[in-house]
């Protein structure tokens, strides 16, 4: 497919444009830091975005392998899920690659009638967005589960150790099963 070939050729441009559109959702000082600090341990957020995008672009071009897509999207969504964004904001970056592809290849798409190919590409992006939504929900559920576990551990375990309740192990295993 022609569009896929074009996208492969301009892979770096796509990643850069996508990265830029994502870091623009942060204040100016922050986006400069996310962009310029290349050390993956000094700038783990920017690094996670860049590394993830490299894999995801390949998925968009070559077709979605569910497991690989989850592995690539997870570090990005996991960060966005605890940065205080609305759910829609947290995963909106997936959709922004549609606009970027249309902008970068507008001439080629028009002149070579690549609309059908574009539709295929965009359907892959839609699939990615649904995967991102799943990950987002999993992360939020995890945060609430962690909160609940802390409360449970603090009270139940302390009471059990202090010998103030009986049959607690049964209660705990029931709770674990229900989780």
């Amino acid at each position, binding site marked *: 497919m022609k569009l896929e070939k074009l996208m492969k050729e301009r892979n770096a441009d796509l990643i850069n444009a996508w990265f830029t559109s994502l870091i623009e959702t942060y*204040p100016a000082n922050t986006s400069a830091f996310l962009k310029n600090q290349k050390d993956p341990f*000094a700038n*783990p957020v920017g690094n996670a975005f860049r590394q993830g995008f490299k894999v995801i672009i390949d998925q968009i071009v070559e077709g979605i392998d569910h497991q690989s897509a989850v592995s690539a999207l997870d570090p990005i969504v996991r960060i966005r899920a605890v940065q205080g964004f609305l759910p829609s*904001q947290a995963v*909106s970056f997936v959709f922004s690659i549609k606009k970027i592809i249309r902008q970068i290849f507008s001439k080629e798409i028009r002149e070579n009638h690549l609309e059908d190919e574009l539709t295929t590409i965009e359907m892959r992006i839609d699939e990615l967005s649904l995967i991102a939504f799943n990950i987002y929900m999993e992360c939020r559920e995890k945060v609430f589960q962690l909160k609940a576990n802390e409360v449970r*551990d603090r009270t139940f*375990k*302390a009471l059990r150790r202090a010998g103030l309740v009986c049959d607690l192990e049964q209660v705990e295993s029931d709770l674990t099963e229900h989780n």
Partner: protein
Amino acid sequence: MTDDLKPHELIANIQPRPPQTGWMNTPAVIRKGMFCYASNPKSVEILKLPNARGWNPLEEDWKLPKNWKEIVFEGLRQRLDRFRTFKLFMDICVRCGACADKCHFFIGTGDPKNMPVLRAELLRSVYRKDFTAAGKIFGTLAGARELTLDVLKEWWYYFFQCTECRRCSVFCPYGIDTAEITIMAREIFNLLGLNIDWIATPIANCYRTGNHLGIQPHAFKDMIDFFIDDIEEKIGIRVEPNINKKGADILFITPSGDVFADPGTYTAMGYLVLFHYLKEKYGLDVTWSTYASEGGNFGFFTSHETMKRLNAKMYAEAKRLGVKWILGGECGHMWRVIHQYMGTMNGPADFLEEPVSPITGTKFDNAKSTKMVHIAEFTADLIKHGKLDLDPSRNDNLIVTFHDSCNTSRGMGLLEEPRYVIKNVCKNFYEMPSNTIREQTFCCGSGSGLNAGENMDLRMIGGFPRANAVKYVHEKHGVNMLACICAIDRAVLPVSMDYWVPGVNVTGIHEMVANALNLPGQPKRTKNLRGEPLPGMEGDDE
């Protein structure tokens, strides 16, 4: 996050663009998941701290005293006079930005007001306006601004998004300690009754029972008894610790968190096993105390006076029991209080001896003033002199990395001793990248009293830089155990690992010491302190 958006508002918000206004003109939005609940007024009353009342950070009216501005200015003035460092830190910052991207909360949240320079500037701008000539005359041109209710709320939100870890200060060319600015800001909040409950209630407990959890002496003893049974069940040796023993050689004080919460409990059991060994082999007499039953000191996150009140029990109990010196457990901020403040704050402890290990003869010169030795140093010295009979193969199932706790690494320079201990009790050890350990260690994200449940989003994103480095060694070397020497780390890092790096557990170093230690008269060891089969014993039901 904003609730109850209309559809058109939602669409407008899907592609967020951050505010384009300058920081002074961008008021803070207090978001759920990022702040801790307000203090329970009863706890504030117990401590006789001012302006106890119920209030809610999400409500418009914080029920402040009418003269709150006056209280803030007077509080600032007193602290500028009293603390030379604070005055200096207010004046000398040139806003070079070296600290800006070094804070785990900035790196994680991406919120510029979490840049240490800007967080300090939130307070410094008000200082300029009212305490400097340039600020009074030139106002905003000189970086000065009026103190308003929005400014106060902004202070509260962001100074409770600083864990006082001091990573930023490592990079400051002037050595400005932003943690001290946070400490001062929190003191001022306490003048207004604006503490958080995760700090206020533990200190109220500690003031009455000696520990943050409010464990009374009999319950504390019950916990130790529970550990004794547990240790016997797992390793076949019944330890006989001393509690409140007058005339013991050494008083041992450790954070109460380790007595009640996993995996700290295994560290506490580790201490009991080590002391049993030292008693059997060398006749060393160590005692626990049910009164000095807390090493941690959340008073440190409240005010200097509160810190002093909670710390006083350490020397008082050492005097009552007539010990020679004090040994302290694996804790973080406890050691900053001891190392930096205790000697002059509640000392001099001239009734204690300068600490010397009765087993090796090593003189702990660094503890000459405080008379209190960190157990990592004590154990490292025992190992160095060949005084512990160790079988590290019992920890062969562990691939370990070490998280330097902020306060022990940056606050007292304890870098090599814990590593020396770890390398002698287990064979598989890998360091995290150099810009994430030792003096440059990343905070767990939940220190300085921010390890509550309601601020879980903040804890997770603040803990991300640390977790990211753990993830790296987990993927590269198969690391499955994160060792640390801090009770708050042991409480919060398992949660952080669960979110960011599943498959990595957390341990204190004395849990590993106890598992490796060969005890006199021990039966065949088949389980570790967690009750898990030892390597090679997986099929053994014994």
